């Protein structure tokens, strides 16, 4: 893979192994721990349908090289949006500013490792014809409208991107990766009398476009979007207060991402500013809870063959049977904490610095049937779909906004309730997980995680869970 990327990304700019070593040499100093070049080329194509017609389309291309020099906890960083030797040398000179004096350092020439590929390298933006893609969107629109006469607006978006990256560092790290990413989103608005409600469904991952164009794939999402809007048309105001909450399987794993995931990223813990700082080995969840971050899953949106620092991804256990056992690390934070990087060093693009980020974060299945979990609740809510969430990693407080939920009364599902925000405290929410289902599911591939202004694609998942106490932000 490395050789292929070298050919595709650097050769057109007249760059080869020799020029890489020349630029790395400019970064060297006896004061830095390592210097790194990150080359990236990304093209993306998107089509959007509205009012029954494909009215919008865009093609975006971006390329560049990010150069950093790392000294202790400090980083010098610069980038250039053209890949050429002069721009590379300029950026290296700027990044090296972090090193105060210019002693000699020694360049280690590396060999690219062979991490097992987690996805195909094919470019989804050249798969099939544009005509096919436009036709697909129109077919989906007609199908959605045929499902229910109350559908008044349908919007469908199809996007595909293809990215090549190459990492080369002064300490011998060398790697390349080619990453496809595709996504289909279907949004509907349904109207009944005075009432209007939305429904959304979508999915994707790192695979060829033909899988997404198969009727089985998009019909499922079309039906799901209409079903959700239908449910919301009949929803009653949500209750307000502290109560038992059963979370559905799959995308509600956003809970794990916010409540524990961010708090277990290496940078926050190295700095001692996470609510989980210094708690390694302690009990942070009930014994039923085992949570992992797994970047190795085949074809998943959050998966990577190597991370953006050239480290092969792993399945890292974060919480094992209720005990905190692992953090997610990039190179800088792993070195400062005296541990190994875990393959979680990610960046939005060459123009951003890498930091510890999640890949696919999920909880392993337990032993309970989901029906049994709902039957165990006297009074509470069952939330099966969410818009997303947010966390304050220092206080540990997190929120996630339900978009489809139901009352539970005496062990039975009741009326649908309107969307409401749920709020809790990360370090203790998993200590109140009373039951874990046997129905682990991963999300369909729509997640974007934001941290310090950088967005990266991620996955989440979980089995059905019962949390014995969360604050539900309804109005009644």
């Amino acid at each position, binding site marked *: 893979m490395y050789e292929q990327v070298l050919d595709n990304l650097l050769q057109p700019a007249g760059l080869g192994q020799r020029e890489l070593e020349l630029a790395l040499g400019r970064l060297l100093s006896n004061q830095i721990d390592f210097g790194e070049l990150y080359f990236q080329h990304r093209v993306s194509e998107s089509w959007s349908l509205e009012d029954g017609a*494909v009215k919008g389309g865009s093609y975006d291309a971006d390329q560049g090289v990010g150069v950093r020099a790392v000294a202790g906890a400090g980083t*010098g960083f610069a980038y250039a949006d053209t890949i050429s030797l002069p721009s590379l040398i300029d950026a290296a000179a700027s990044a090296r500013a972090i090193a105060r004096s210019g002693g000699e350092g020694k360049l280690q020439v590396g060999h690219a490792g062979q991490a097992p590929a987690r996805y195909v390298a094919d470019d989804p933006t050249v798969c099939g014809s544009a005509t096919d893609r436009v036709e697909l969107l129109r077919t989906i629109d007609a199908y959605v409208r045929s499902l229910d006469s109350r559908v008044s607006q349908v919007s469908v978006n199809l996007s595909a991107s293809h990215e090549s990256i190459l990492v080369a560092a002064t300490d011998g790290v060398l790697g390349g990766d080619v990453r496809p990413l595709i996504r289909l989103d279907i949004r509907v608005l349904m109207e009944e009398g005075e009432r209007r*409600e939305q429904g959304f469904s979508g999915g994707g991952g790192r695979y060829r476009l033909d899988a997404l164009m198969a009727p089985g794939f998009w019909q499922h999402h079309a039906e799901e979007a209409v079903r959700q809007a239908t449910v919301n048309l009949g929803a009653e105001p949500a209750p307000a207060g502290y109560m038992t909450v059963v979370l559905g399987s799959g995308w509600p794993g956003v809970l794990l991402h916010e409540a524990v995931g961010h708090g277990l990223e290496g940078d926050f813990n190295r700095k001692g500013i996470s609510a989980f700082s210094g708690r390694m080995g302690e009990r942070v969840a009930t014994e039923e809870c085992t949570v992992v971050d797994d970047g190795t899953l085949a074809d998943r949106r959050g998966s990577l063959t190597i991370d953006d620092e050239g480290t092969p991804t792993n399945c890292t256990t974060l919480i094992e049977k209720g005990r905190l056992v692992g953090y997610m690390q990039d190179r800088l934070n792993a070195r400062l904490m005296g541990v190994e990087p875990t393959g979680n060093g990610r960046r939005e693009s060459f123009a951003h610095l890498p930091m510890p980020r999640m890949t696919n974060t999920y909880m392993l299945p337990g032993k309970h049937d989901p029906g049994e979990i709902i039957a165990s609740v006297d009074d509470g809510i069952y939330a099966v779909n969410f818009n997303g969430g947010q966390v304050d990693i220092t206080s540990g407080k997190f929120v996630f906004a339900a978009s489809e939920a139901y009352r539970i009364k005496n062990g039975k599902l009741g009326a649908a309730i309107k969307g409401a925000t749920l709020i809790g405290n990360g370090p203790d929410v998993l200590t109140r997980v009373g039951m874990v289902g046997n129905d682990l599911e991963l999300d369909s591939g729509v997640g974007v995680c934001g941290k310090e202004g950088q967005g990266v694609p991620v996955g989440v998942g979980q089995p059905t869970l019962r949390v014995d106490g969360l*604050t539900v*932000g309804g109005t*009644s």
Partner: protein
Amino acid sequence: MTITELKNSGIDALLHDPDREADLLVDIATRVIDQARAGGADEAEVTVTSSLAREAGVRLGEIETLEEARDRGVRVTVYCKQCVGSASTGDLRADAIDETVERALAIARHTQPDRAAGLAEAALMARHFPELDLWHPVNLPLDQLAERAREIEQAGRSADERIANSEGASVSTEAGVSVYANSHGFVGTGRGTRYSQSCVLIARDEAGMQRDYDYDTARSFEVLAAPETTGRGAAGRTVRRLGARRIPTGKVPVLFAPEVARGLIGHLVGAVSGGNLYRRSSFLLDAVGETVMPAWATLIERPHLPRGAKSSAFDGDGVATRESALVSGGVLDRYVLSSYSARRLGLDTTANAGGVRNLELIGGDRSVDELIKEMGTGLMVNELMGQGVNLVTGDYSRGAAGFWIENGEIAWPVEEITIAGHLRDMLGKLRAAGSDVDTRHNIRTGSLLVDEMTVAGAEG
């Protein structure tokens, strides 16, 4: 015409000679338009941007990051028999730009005709370009930014012994030049500088840790707050959160501090914006002429405000901007429309392609202390979390943190609660606005006192 390759020559060239940089961008824009027309486009428009940014971050007295960023980009949109195609690139070399135009034309060969598509009418293009006072270049090297960040953090860490840790302080500068041009022959250039500083601190007590921050941002470096002001401000905001707890579930009045009040006005803007209206995805459909706020409230857009956060003589379609009310005496005067959304709705553009520009709430005449006294007992919110705002229905439910108010005074800090209501009621029954207007942002408002919301917290 030929294009010379833009070199990385002298990273400060943009600061010293913005006119030359603008000329280069205009050359590119003109060529893109010509090429699009030659390639079969009936109409075309292009935006070319160039910026230089520097940022230094310091944590616990040590430099954490020194960043230098030089960004350029081109985005072109072509219209071929009302079929639209768009493409962008970050590579401003001639061959990359040529390919970008070709890509946009190729996309337009596959999209379907859209009767609303196309440029705004030529007669609406801006012809007067008032001085907006947005360009205040100072060439500040990274070590000077780092020194200032160190002073900010030091002032914050020494302000209170309960400050136990720091996420650091940072200082950044940015200078940008941009050009928008279209096939009516319109060429508009804009340029601006921005200076920002921030500090994030951690306080600790027996109950745990709290984090908060302070910042400042300005067009000119000289008017940026003193380093001590931002550092001590961050310490004060952080320490006052210690001991935060939940409050019981119930209905109370809620005072939105300016940093969250502007979001509330932002939801109103979102609900009357063209895209949400023609998609019927707003709780304020057909609301022009209706009462959406109390009679004391007026919202005025001032796009030519000197040094304003979003000042510009023209909007994203090249249409001349002008001062105009959005809400007068509580009544919605107009929508927020681009030429495209206006055509979709059968209306005229309001010169709002790209959103509102410097929207100011008039009618806030009381100090925060007076508002707190007027509220008596209730909740003051200065942080909101999560995405629980539904503009289709107006349903609102978000995580919040702030202070419990009792007998007209701040009693203690509050966290891990939600506030919920309906935007139509929240905006319609605003009781009062404060004179503590935050002028650093595009939406300029003081504190807002909302009549009543449902708070969910502890049991009982």
